[in-house]
């Protein structure tokens, strides 16, 4: 029997984080540039800072919808990167346990096209490493928060992902020389394995007008582990097989999903009774990002033909060489008008996310650009809507544009099969979210 390891010839997966990492959670947070570590006051706390769940005394339920449309190109033509759209929901439920003020919360982003998608590409195929497959998965988080003392809150939680692990087994006869003449039975055994990663936060009301926040989101790598075996004969029906009772097994392990470890610091300052200014800086540990190309192992027994099969040694995988980044965010919220039953707010924000990826000069093509995100939004809070809903009801919406300025990638080799290219693009996003207080 022959065994060999092959790397990266065919199957380089795209390995990215979840959609809320990319586009934010809800409508208020993205409208304010995502500067929410100290400013979050809705279901977005389940992502931005779980400690904020314990602020307030009302049950809050957020339900909304978000949509993002990337228009990304390398060399001028739109690459057709998929939209991200789906339902967003959040829950914050405060209460008391043994006199301690606590809250539980849950956050969900449910794509309305796919729950999850795993993709593999030829290893050298260019792709926008942080956008190509990033939003194509579900986000689910559950949190617990507690008020430690007056003005000091802490929260912890777990976010969930899932990965597939399984085998596909074929048994019977593989047609040779005509593979369409095969006669095989199929058995599939796949598990959906849960992956959990932690998140935590602190919120401190340092002054009556100033909140400070610190949040941590654990990093993880999601492995895609699949196996494939064929056992049986090789040949044509009714004729003595060319290979009698042969065996072929292929196993691929690739990195389908990567989220960098993150620490966010933030402030929220009520500058005037009408103006709230919020700012964040988030450290993201992209240096842990590995080349997601699949490790492929082949094991086979073709009897008399074993010596004819030559499986070359795998070349070493080129490193991705991503580096850590700091992402500053700034947001402002203004109480624009107040009526008898309504309060109208306008919001704006800006975020700068430097690219963690180096210029792609070698074999790899994990393309990414610096990103400037400009956002606008607004919302209305309606109190005493009806007797059925005496508690306030909020409706928020936002629009955001993320601009990826031109970035040149100059290849070191004059015969690199991709050649030089310039990556650029824009991502348009928007969303609407309602918040119900009980």
């Amino acid at each position, binding site marked *: 029997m022959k065994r060999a390891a092959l790397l990266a010839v065919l199957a380089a997966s795209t390995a990215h984080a979840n959609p809320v990492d990319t586009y934010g959670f809800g409508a208020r947070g993205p409208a304010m540039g995502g500067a929410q570590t100290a400013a979050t006051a809705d279901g977005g706390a389940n992502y931005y800072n779980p400690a904020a769940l314990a602020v307030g005394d009302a049950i809050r339920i957020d339900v909304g919808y978000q949509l993002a449309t990337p228009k990304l190109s390398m060399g001028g033509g739109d*690459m*057709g990167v*998929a939209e991200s759209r789906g339902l967003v929901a959040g829950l914050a439920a405060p209460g008391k346990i043994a006199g301690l003020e606590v809250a539980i919360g849950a956050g969900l982003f449910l794509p309305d096209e796919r729950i999850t998608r795993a993709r593999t590409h030829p290893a050298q195929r260019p792709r926008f490493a942080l956008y190509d497959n990033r939003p194509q998965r579900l986000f689910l988080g559950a949190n617990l928060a507690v008020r430690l003392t007056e003005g000091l809150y802490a929260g912890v939680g777990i976010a969930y992902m899932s990965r597939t692990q399984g085998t*596909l087994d074929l048994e019977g006869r593989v047609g*040779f020389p005509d593979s369409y003449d095969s006669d095989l039975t199929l058995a599939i055994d796949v598990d959906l394995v849960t992956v959990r990663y932690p998140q935590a936060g602190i919120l401190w009301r340092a002054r009556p007008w100033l909140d400070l926040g610190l949040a941590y989101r654990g990093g993880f790598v999601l492995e895609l582990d699949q196996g494939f075996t064929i056992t049986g004969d090789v040949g044509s029906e009714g004729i003595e097989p060319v290979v009698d009772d042969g065996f072929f097994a292929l196993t691929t392990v690739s990195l389908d999903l990567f989220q960098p470890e993150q620490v966010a610091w933030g402030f929220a300052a009520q500058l005037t009774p009408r103006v709230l200014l919020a700012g964040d800086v988030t450290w993201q540990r992209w240096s842990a990002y590995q080349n997601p190309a699949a490790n492929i192992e*082949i094991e086979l027994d073709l009897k008399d033909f074993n010596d004819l099969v030559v499986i070359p040694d795998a070349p070493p995988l080129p490193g991705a060489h991503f580096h850590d980044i700091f992402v500053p965010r700034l947001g402002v919220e203004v109480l624009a008008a107040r009526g008898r039953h309504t309060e109208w707010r306008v919001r704006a924000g800006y975020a700068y996310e430097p690219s963690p990826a180096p210029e792609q000069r070698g074999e790899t093509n994990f393309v990414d650009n610096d990103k400037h995100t400009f956002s606008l939004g607004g919302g209305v809070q309606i109190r005493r809507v009806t007797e059925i809903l005496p508690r306030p009801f909020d409706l928020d919406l936002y629009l955001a544009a993320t601009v990826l300025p031109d970035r040149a990638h100059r290849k070191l080799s004059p015969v690199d099969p991709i*050649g030089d290219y310039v990556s650029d693009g824009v991502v348009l996003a928007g969303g609407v979210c309602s918040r119900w207080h009980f």
Partner: protein
Amino acid sequence: MALLRSALVLGLVGACGMGGEEGGGDDNLPTLGAGPYGKLEAPAEGVTPAIEPFVVTDNVADLADPEALPLGGGAFRLWFTRTEPGAMAEIWRADLPAVTELPDPAPARALAATEAWEGGWVGAPSVVDRGGGRLAMYYQGAGGIGRADSTDRGETWSKVGLVLADGADPGAIEVGGRTYLYYTRADAGGIFLAESQDGVTFVPRADPVIVRRDTDADAFDRLWVGEPEPVGGVTAAGQVQIGLFFTGRATEGATAIGYAGSYDGREFTRFFNDDAILEPGLADESDPAVVLEPAHGTLFFTQLRAQTTAIAVAVHP
């Protein structure tokens, strides 16, 4: 290998089972355009006017040495050498509305021998687009390489004269105001380079830029290299990149088309594990002419069809 191929096809489809699909970010992928190329095939359904992979044919004359200029919208203007039995070679022109259609109008003569140095024949055109409808054609005659200019995008030509004596098979490109003329010589093997600031006065370099690989028994260009076709220019990222498609001849006498790349037009690196970029067929392929776009390449070449040679086409990816 078919045995392993059957197993691997089933295995990889089953284990990976994924790949490009709608919204997959696989559109308009950048490419160097070096290959591999695949000959154009007749569509599985429907009929096209062309006889794939041939785009220009002649029942009487040999057609060879194509050169191509994109006209936009998938159309091309081709020039090529046409040699009737018993007659001297001339340069003809054909306009292709698309690679799946026949020339329209019918091919016609573009350039015939009129100068003494040409020795009664002309061929092997290489056209440089100088912008604004201005073209410069470098072509071969008996005495070397000459130049003709056009101001109406190749409808008519006026001869400039001999620019490089004793040269053959010209392939020219203009980059950054400098003209690189690649050619072969009867007295030495390999592909040579001459450079010019004005496109008329050339300074040849002593050593060839591409040589045959006579130490590699499996090389497609073990015996001979020639028929250079330069492509490239300043890339979107600001580098000068010149690619050279060329014909190679192997031990058995069969020809195939290869590619090498360079950042200065003088030092070249072979592409694609030293293999040909167009899978050689039973009929020899030679005389490449390539039109590159950011995500696509079109390769015109000479191939034998029945009793005469004709112009065929291959595409990448």
